[in-house]
């Protein structure tokens, strides 16, 4: 598609529950990025993929967060045992290549942990 698609739009979880977010990048884009936007509007980089391979995972809280990009499937970001501080908007972005290429952002998934 011509736009990055993210589902669901909103997700509500009780503390300790699992949350799974999905992202379909623009067709032909090889790189996928996940960012977390918290209440103060700061964007935190989480992880990036080159096709199905992890490219950079320096931002991932590895204890509870995991992500995958499998062939012919949407990419996913999973949070095991959610905590209150995981409440944020999670954005997915894609680009044709890395480096200074424009990243195209999806509309985001708002995760609320109660």
């Amino acid at each position, binding site marked *: 598609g011509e736009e990055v698609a993210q589902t669901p739009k909103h997700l509500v979880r009780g503390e300790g529950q699992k949350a799974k977010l999905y992202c379909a990048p623009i067709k032909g884009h090889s790189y996928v990025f996940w960012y977390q936007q918290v209440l103060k509007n700061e964007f935190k*980089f989480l992880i*990036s993929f080159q096709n199905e391979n992890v490219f950079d995972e320096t*931002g991932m809280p590895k204890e509870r967060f995991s992500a995958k990009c499998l062939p012919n499937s949407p990419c996913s970001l999973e949070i095991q045992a959610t905590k209150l501080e995981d409440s944020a908007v999670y954005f997915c972005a894609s680009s044709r290549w890395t480096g200074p290429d424009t990243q195209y952002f*999806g*509309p985001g998934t708002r995760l609320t942990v109660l």
Partner: protein
Amino acid sequence: AQSVTQLDSQVPVFEEAPVELRCNYSSSVSVYLFWYVQYPNQGLQLLLKYLSGSTLVKGINGFEAEFNKSQTSFHLRKPSVHISDTAEYFCAVSDFNKFYFGSGTKLNVKP
């Protein structure tokens, strides 16, 4: 390491007035700079980008930005704003792996 500072968290301005949104960066590598706009409950939309060449970059919706290497700045400008420009604006610097975003500036255009 790369970082971006947007000193103004909010900028109120009247319709048809000019506006400048400030962005300063620090980078230890080659500099690639971007401005994105975020409308309420939406994702980020690219306004413009500087990769190389002319330091004055023109973008969509009448916005432009000037790359100033000596002042490590990439300020965004528009000569005459509209109500529809009300949104949050994010400056970002790219290394070869990811973007680093500023904390955003809320532009509030008043009639």
